[in-house]
C-alpha cells in the first residue's frame, strides 16, 4: 500500500492526500471548461442580439429606400427624397466598378448607376456614417416605359457582405405615372 495516496492520506491524521488534490484539480479544470463554454454561449447570444438590432435597422432602411424608389421616376429623384445633410452621392459606373462591388446586370451606363446614402449607427443621416444603403436603378432595355428594377443593399463598415438586400420593381409610364 502506498502511504499517503488516499483521500485522507491513508493515515489517522485526517489531512487530504494526493488523490484529493488530483481530484480537486480535475474538478477545477472541468469547472473552468464549463465556465468557458458558458461564456462563449453568452458572447454568441449577445452578438446575435446585436445582429438582430442591426437587421431590424437594415430592413427599415431598405423599406424607406423602396418607398423612395416607388415614388420616383429617376435616381436623382430618389436621391432628393432620401438625402439629408449631404449624406447621399450617386456613384457613376466607373466609380462603382472601382469600388469592387458586383452589380448584376450592370451592362449599360445607366444600369450601373448607384445611389449611396450614409447613416450613423442610430440611422441618422451622416455623410461619414458607417452604415450605408446602395440603391441600384436598372432601367428597362426598351425605351423610357416599363419596369424599373431596383436592388437595395444595406452595408456596414465591418461587414463585407450586405446586411440586407431588397429587390423591388416599379412601372414607369412615359406619361409620368407609376404603379
Amino acid at each position, binding site marked *: 500500500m502506498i502511504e499517503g495516496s488516499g483521500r485522507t*492520506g491513508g493515515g489517522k491524521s485526517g489531512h487530504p492526500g494526493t488523490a484529493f488534490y488530483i481530484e480537486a484539480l480535475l474538478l477545477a479544470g472541468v469547472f473552468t471548461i464549463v465556465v468557458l463554454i458558458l461564456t462563449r454561449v453568452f458572447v454568441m447570444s449577445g452578438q446575435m442580439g446585436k445582429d438582430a438590432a442591426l437587421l*431590424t435597422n437594415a430592413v427599415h432602411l431598405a423599406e424607406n429606400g423602396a418607398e423612395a424608389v416607388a415614388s420616383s421616376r429617376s435616381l436623382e429623384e430618389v436621391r432628393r427624397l432620401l438625402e439629408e445633410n449631404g449624406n447621399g452621392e450617386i456613384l457613376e459606373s466607373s466609380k462603382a466598378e472601382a469600388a469592387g462591388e458586383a452589380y448584376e446586370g450592370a451592362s449599360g451606363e445607366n444600369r450601373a448607376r448607384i445611389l449611396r446614402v450614409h447613416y450613423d449607427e442610430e440611422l441618422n443621416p451622416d455623410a461619414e456614417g458607417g452604415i450605408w444603403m446602395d440603391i441600384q436603378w436598372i432601367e428597362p432595355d426598351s425605351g423610357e416605359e416599363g419596369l424599373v428594377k431596383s436592388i437595395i443593399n444595406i452595408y456596414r463598415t465591418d461587414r463585407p457582405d450586405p446586411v440586407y438586400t431588397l429587390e423591388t420593381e416599379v412601372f414607369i409610364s412615359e406619361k409620368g405615372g407609376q404603379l
Partner: protein
Amino acid sequence: MKRDGGSSGVYTMVIAVIFLAGFFLTVVFGALTYRDIAAGQSGNNEKRALLSYLSTCVRMNDTTGAVSVAEADGEPVLVIADGQSGYALRIYRYEDKLVEDYGEAQGALYPDMAQVIGETKEFRIEALGNDTYRIITDAGRVLFGLRSRSEEVAADD
C-alpha cells in the same frame, strides 16, 4: 511524513474561492448579456411600433385625399381618413408619447382617450413632394409615398 494541516486548508479554500468566483462571474456575465438582449429586443419592438405602424396605417387607408397633415397647438397631426365616413385616425405627439385617436377628421383631438403607440420626444412630418412624406421620431425616420395618386394617373393613361 506529516502534512501541514494549515497549507492544505488554504489549498481547499483557494479551490472553493475559485469555484465561487467563477460561478459568480458567469452568472453576472449571463445576466448582463440577457439584459442587453432584452433591451435590444425592446428597442426593436419600439422601433417597429413607432415606424412600421405609421406606414401600415397609411397603406391601409391610402385613398385619394385620405392622408393629410394638420396642426394642433403647434404640433403636427397626421390625419388618415376612414373612407368617406368623415372620421379619421389622428396620430400626434402628446406628453412625449406618440398617440392615436379616432374622431371627426376636422374635429378636436382627444389626447386623454388616445391610444399610446410609443414614446417619442420628436414627431415631425415633412412633405417631400411627389405625395411622399417623411416622418421623424426618436426611433428614426419613415418614408411613405401615397399610391392613390399614382393609380389615378395610371387610370388616366
